[in-house]
């Protein structure tokens, strides 16, 4: 059963079109990340799902229930979803146990059963010993977990998370990421997770919805996003690809096309289209040649080394190709050249970007 269905959602604030033509189907128990730069609309989408905003057009179904659209609007308190806020939003005048049990007391759950559920939730996040404390007495990471426990106590089918790890330090972030994956699998709740950090999205999600300018760029599994980005924005946003203009020559087989890039011929993944196209390349798709062995013309391109950056175990060499207005390229290398040297590089792999969708 699909857990969340958003159909053709649109939302504007005054002149600013925050979302348009958003479609999303999330299966029960799936972990979906909403990824994009600031202002892309991912938080607006989350708030539409929660019910804090009403869509201008389109509809939202949670479970089998239509909660927004076609004249219907169900306020947040009736949607039975959980949400972890970026600021955690713990009520300062209540203890941890009262915070976690609030939703249950609102629903009129009798005291004994409520206490049991609260204890279970706290145990799930490892904070059983802190039940009587107040939020002000907890660290950031602990507050984060209380916010999570507050969701879990309700046992909702859908949990929304609004950049929950943004305020934590890197080490704590990693620990919490494990926690989220674990809970998602154990509880079977659908997680919708907003983040601007692509590494986080890739490591956590089953599928990622990449957004930019209020529109969907691509909805796919992380591997697909990484290897076969649908648009230039996705390519550049994830993994820091470089996008170069290419001239497509002829298809080589079902999956590959011969192309001319930076005055060399190479084999790229993708399908044949118009001869003028763009392709995305990762640093490891390029190979640095330092030897003096002679090479055939048309198989390598010359470039000048501008900088060498150590990445802990390997290097990134920043080069400027000699062709006019070529962008700076980053090449992954194990043994770095000297700055100022002239080198040659070969393109080993790349992905042809699908043609831009007409707006």
């Amino acid at each position, binding site marked *: 059963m699909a857990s969340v269905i958003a159909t053709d959602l649109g939302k504007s604030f005054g002149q*600013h079109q925050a979302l348009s033509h958003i479609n999303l189907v999330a299966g029960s128990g799936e972990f979906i990340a909403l990824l994009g730069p600031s202002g892309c609309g991912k938080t607006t989408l989350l708030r539409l799902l929660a019910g*804090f*905003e009403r869509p201008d057009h389109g509809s939202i179904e949670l479970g089998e229930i239509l909660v927004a659209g076609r004249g219907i609007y169900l306020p947040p*308190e009736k949607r039975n*979803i959980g949400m972890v806020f970026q*600021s955690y939003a*713990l009520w300062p005048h209540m203890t941890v146990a009262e915070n976690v049990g609030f939703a249950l007391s609102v629903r009129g759950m009798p005291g004994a059963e409520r206490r049991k559920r609260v204890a279970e939730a706290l145990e799930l996040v490892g904070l059983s010993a802190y039940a009587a404390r107040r939020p002000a007495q907890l660290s950031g990471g602990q507050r984060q977990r209380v916010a999570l426990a507050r969701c879990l106590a309700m046992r909702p089918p859908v949990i929304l998370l609004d950049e929950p790890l943004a305020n934590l330090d890197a080490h704590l972030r990693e620990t919490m990421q494990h926690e989220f994956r674990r809970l998602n699998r154990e509880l079977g709740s659908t997680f919708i997770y907003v983040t601007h950090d692509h590494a986080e999205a890739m490591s956590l999600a089953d599928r990622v919805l990449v957004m930019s300018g209020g529109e969907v760029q691509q909805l796919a599994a992380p591997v697909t996003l990484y290897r076969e980005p649908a648009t230039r924005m996705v390519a550049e946003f994830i993994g820091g690809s470089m996008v170069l203009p290419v001239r497509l020559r002829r298809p080589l087989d079902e999956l590959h096309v011969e192309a001319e890039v930076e005055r060399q011929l190479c084999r790229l993944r993708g399908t044949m289209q118009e001869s003028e196209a763009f392709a995305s390349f990762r640093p490891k798709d390029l190979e640095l040649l330092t030897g003096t062995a002679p090479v055939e013309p048309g198989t390598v391109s010359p470039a000048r080394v501008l900088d060498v950056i150590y990445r802990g175990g390997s290097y990134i060499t920043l080069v400027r190709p000699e062709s006019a207005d070529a962008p700076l390229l980053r090449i992954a290398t194990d043994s770095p050249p000297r700055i100022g040297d002239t080198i040659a590089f070969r393109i080993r792999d790349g992905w042809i970007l699908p043609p831009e969708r007409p707006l």
Partner: protein
Amino acid sequence: MTDPATAAAGRRRPLLLPRSEQLFLCLVLAYVAVIGLWPLLRLFSETFTSVPGQPLALLQDVWSSRSLQRALGNTIVASAGATLFATVIGSAMALVIGITDLPGKSLAVFVFLLPLLIPPQITAMAWTEFTGSNSLILNLLHLAPAPGSANPLYSGYGIMLVMGIEHAAIVFLTVRASLRAVPRDLIEAARLAGAGPKHITRKIILPVLRPAILSGAALAFVSAIGNFGVPALLGIPGRYPMLTTLIYQQLNGFGPTVLGSVSAVSLLLVALAAIGLGMKALLAAGPATIERGAELQPFPLGGWLLILLPLLWLWLGISAAMPLLSLLVTSFLPAVGVPLTAASATLDNYRFVLLNDASTQRAFVNSFALAAAAGVVSALIALPLGYFLALRRSRLARLIDLLADAPYAVPGIVLAIGVILVFLPPLPVLHVSLYGTIWIILIAYLARSLPLALRPTIAAFEQLDRALDEAGQIAGAGLLKRMWRILMPSVAPSLAAGAILVFMIAFTELTVSALLWSSGHETLGVVVFMLHGEGNTTGAAALAVLMITVITGLALVMSAVSRWLPKGVVPWQA
């Protein structure tokens, strides 16, 4: 970081409210309309219907009269002067308290805020005692004016002085609250850039405070034009008529036949107030500090302490302590004009007021109950209204806010007459008239109390993380439940502050009570005024001293428990 575009948009755009919440707001609207608007509209309809067929005839007649134009000119001049004075003094005090490490802040602020607690006519009374040729203190200092010469306070300048001191407290509170919200980082960034305290104050703190200063000035102006007690005691003997005393005189001299022209004058006052409030909305809407950082550290004064501290206490002594002392002296005199000596001092006035006068004893009880009720009810109404205004940005709430300010801007006398006209006939379903009961006084108090309770509540909600309310929604709690379990506890300190402010004003209030009280339902302000009007100045002084003692006692109690209250609840807690 929450998506900035959404955050900014969310703060700008009003959210559409579900039907149940709209209903709730409509109830609040009904409350404001019945209590405040209806009496005013009824009164103003008198203006336009008094000459049948010529709605504007009366307005033209009244507005072109010489006495009105003189009163109008005086009102504008005196109020502007008082406002200027109040703004300078109030802001300076807020700065001194807020950014320096002056010792004894709590006491200084308490003394500074005393004029808020003391009704205007008592303040005026105290000042006339202080500056008269009879003044004990001035005579000791050989500064007293010659006997038989006019009291220097009976003039436009006297009015400006006393009103300015009275309203400086309002400006102080507004600016101080804004100063509290200035985060430490702003100052620290400036210090890193090499700026010294004076530079920081001038270039950073004052600009950030500008909206609050202007807002405080606007409030002081509106208070000044509607002030009755000071012009009544100082302006009438000084032949300096102002709009409020003009209304009072016309009513007194010509009776309710002039209700129409009285309301024509009131329209003018309302127009002035509207200009003042409008300017406040325009000028005072500055960039609100959305970031909430730690509170700023005070600057050390160093050598300046030796100059500033005595100066401060000299000012406080003159502006607050001396008049009160004069009042105290008068309360022990057998009659006015008798010099105070060991032999002449008497407790007769206190005996009369406490033991022999049943009306005073009743007045204590009445005023206490009325003021407490007004405080609690206003706070309870301010809670949802502030919520809808600040967190939900509802347009309907903003309309209600504007309407709620109306009865506050209109002078109390005018409101009282409107209330009488509306509530004298029996109520529709209950067939009981509220006139002559204590409830009619409560209604008039409530009409004027809501803005007082609303300001601190809105400020608290603006500082509240909206996510706290949204988390409550996610947890499934409807509006009422969230109001009771989440919102009220979160803003409780500000609600309490608003309620206490309302209490303190209502407890000693005069202008509205003067027309609405009836046998058995006297209020303290009325009793003082009456005693003074009957020639029993010493009795009035004794009662005034007792009232001030009660208020001061309450204030001290609040100070004692302020340790357990969050910052900002107790206005003079530095």
